[in-house]
């Protein structure tokens, strides 16, 4: 007589960890590769990204122009391919700088505690209570647009959250016996940070990198939309979306292509990031 004696109804059903990589993550990874391929081969497809041909403005998709042309007659598909580099570069730069700085700050604050922790935490509190986009609009609007200024401003405002998350993890690990053992053996602090703490919190670092990458995509395209990021006419997906939006009814794909590309890249980064975090975080956990 077999009875399935499970708890009434609502115990969590722990997701079965199917071996290998789930399909969703595979698709997301492939989608992330597409922009990278575009960066490597910038001249994919027939059209030319920057050539302005006044006569064929706002054509709908055709054999010669796979995604039609924009209001200045430039081939949208070529611009999408060419724009992949700036669409990747911005968020990539933002994510890596944010994660690098926040990891260092977190290690110092979490491991050394004391006055360093106090200073860094105060710094994080100050940034936490400042409205990011509001100040970005003031700074970038006032000092004139520019890709680098946009990335710099957004990097500063992505720091606080990342520092807090990583610092908590470092502080928790720093009190565990394997770190104390390393101390009693006489390992120098720098080596403890580098050889012991960084590998242990590396899944968190990877996950926060992907998270910042996603925020980078969304925030940078927001800046472009407000006309504050990259200069006009540049092949940046956010910029193209903002500019082509105006003539959406004539050539719908000139707006849809950059919009969809931004979303797909952000979603894929999110999915891959989550999966990497769960996979390595479990390996890192003690039990």
């Amino acid at each position, binding site marked *: 007589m*077999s*009875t*399935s004696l499970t*708890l009434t109804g609502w*115990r969590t*059903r722990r997701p079965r960890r199917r071996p290998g990589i789930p399909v969703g993550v595979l698709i997301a990874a492939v989608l992330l590769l597409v922009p990278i391929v575009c960066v490597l081969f910038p001249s994919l497809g027939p059209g030319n990204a920057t050539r302005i041909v006044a006569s064929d403005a706002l054509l709908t998709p055709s054999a010669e122009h796979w995604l039609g042309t924009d209001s200045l007659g430039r081939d949208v598909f070529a611009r999408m391919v060419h724009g992949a580099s700036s669409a990747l570069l911005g968020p990539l730069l933002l994510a890596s700088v944010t994660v690098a700085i926040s990891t260092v700050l977190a290690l110092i604050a979490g491991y050394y505690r004391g006055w360093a922790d106090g200073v860094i935490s105060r710094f994080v509190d100050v940034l936490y209570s400042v409205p990011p986009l509001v100040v970005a609009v003031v700074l970038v609007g006032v000092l004139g647009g520019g890709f680098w200024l946009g990335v710099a401003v957004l990097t500063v405002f992505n720091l606080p959250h990342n520092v807090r998350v990583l610092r908590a993890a470092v502080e928790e690990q720093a009190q565990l016996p394997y770190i104390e053992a390393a101390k009693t053996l006489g390992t120098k602090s720098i080596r403890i940070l580098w050889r012991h703490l960084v590998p242990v919190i590396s899944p968190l670092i990877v996950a926060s990198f992907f998270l910042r990458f996603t925020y980078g995509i969304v925030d940078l395209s927001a800046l472009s939309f407000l006309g504050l990021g990259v200069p006009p006419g540049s092949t940046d997906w956010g910029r193209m979306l903002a500019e082509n939006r105006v003539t959406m009814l004539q050539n719908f794909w000139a707006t849809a292509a950059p919009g969809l590309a931004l979303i797909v890249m952000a979603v894929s980064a999110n999915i891959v990031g989550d999966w990497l975090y769960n996979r390595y975080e479990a390996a890192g956990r*003690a039990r």
Partner: protein
Amino acid sequence: MTSLDTTESAVLDVAALSIRGRRAGAEVGIVDNVALRVASGEAIAVVGESGSGKSLTVRALLDLLPPGVTAAGSIRFDHRSLGKLTARERHRLRGCQLAFVMQDPFTMLNPLQRCGEQIMAALRARDRRLTRKLCRAQAVARLEEVGISDPAVADRYPFELSGGMRQRVAIAAAIAERPRVLVADEPTTALDVTTQREILSLLDRLRRDHGLSLVLITHDLDVAFSVCDRVYVMYAGTVVESGPTAAVADRPRHPYTFSLIQAKPPLDVRVDRLLNLPGGVPSPGNWPEGCRFAPRCRWATDECTHEHPALNDVAPAHQVRCVRAGEIEHELVPRAAPTVIGSDRLARADETEALVHVRAARKTFGTGRRAKVAVESADIDVFAGESVGLVGESGSGKTTLARMIVGLTRPTSGEVRVGGVDLGQGKLSRADWSMVRSTAQMAFQDPYSTLNLRLSVGDTLNEAIRLAPKDTVRRDPAELLDLVGLPTSYQQRRPTQLSGGERQRVAIARALARNPRLIVCDEIVSALDVSVQAHVLNLLADLRRDLGLSYLFITHDLAVVRQVTERVYVLMDGRIVEQGSTPAVLDDPRDSYTKQLIRSVPAHHRRDGLVDRSRRTP
């Protein structure tokens, strides 16, 4: 199912219970064909090492299996089969008929709810009319029942209470609706010896006062023998022996039960070597054919490996699952002839050289109103080649003292001289630190966090070898692993692939890499199963003999102190209350606290009759 006098009304009757679950993606059997019976008012114990399936067996009774784990078999409560009930009906049994108490008092109670509310939660759920005032009165009464007389505790939050008190509140909450059966899953494992004794006697009293049947799950045979009427011993998912406490304790008929008893370090005498069982408990999914204990059993023959032996009676109400039970009966006599070491043959300490010389060490955490004195003032010496014990309950400051000796914590005042360097005064030069580190190294308690999980064993050892002073002998990882009895192939392994015992061995190897003269062992065996504990203690003895090491052994387990140390200091609330040679202190304690400590050790209960069932042969 052989006959038990069926007249006795079995409150709970479990037959042919099998539990299957998922391990690494595959469906495996965890528990197979277990039978248990509890009469009303009776206390049974389910004993076994971790991985034996005892905890899941008990959770199946209460339908509390984690998701993905399913149970099959007949569970009859008051002659009604639980299997036939719907989930909702089974849920109605919980609390009023079947109660459950868990191991860790710190996570069992809802941290955000006052204790009084939690106790009365079940009753209020049943009967809405109970007003807040009436509930609080009831709660105070229930607290009284479990030995907490201060009504203010009802308004406290769990985090404001000590471990023992939280366990009492939990028990009060569990039996709020006067259940017929109380299932307790390792209720005292996380507690100190003295608190453990109070809780066990509380459970015993509740059993007698309310006619409560008790099902106690523990890995500690002595706890089982001290409280329960009958014992079921589980190994690798099956019951290998069951019977009345006295019979099983005095004349264990299954080699595994015998080994467990032998592996436990005795409190009263020091034995030359603890019986250590080779190998480990086979994990579900790779149980050997035939008798599952055969690969580790000294008396195993081919016959044992053929088919899985059945449980058969060897005495009234005493069953064993071993084909050779009859033949080897006379060999399984505990302590038949342990080679006892007299106090005279203990290793000689070299009085001249004090590795550790601590005078009036003091440590306070925090400042001002909230300052907490961890160590009042301690005077301790450890001489070369000597093994010294530091005994005390949690919160006594023994760990803080140890950390001061290895330089992890700076003393607030007093002299802490290690290898001639006083850690108490100001800045220490690099040479000073190197001297301290070459003198004393430390091994930690929790096997799961003593190693960096992201580094392989080889890397961890190389990290330590790198730091060994140039002039001393530098062993390579293979040598170190060999020293601690692990195969050299373990270098590539990750800590997650090792068992608890193996991880502690690697931790010891790491400490040895630095060629220290003293190893501070902070409770390194208390988180391990009995058989694994024996391995590690024997290893420490060998290392001491081969390398001339000395130990500062921190523990709350007096039996372990007896086996490992020559001298012992007893610590209470940061002060040393007694010190002297181990046999003297344990056999003839002066200080009242030491006496109470010794009295609380479960192995002792049977002697002075907490539950005096039978005389124990010497």
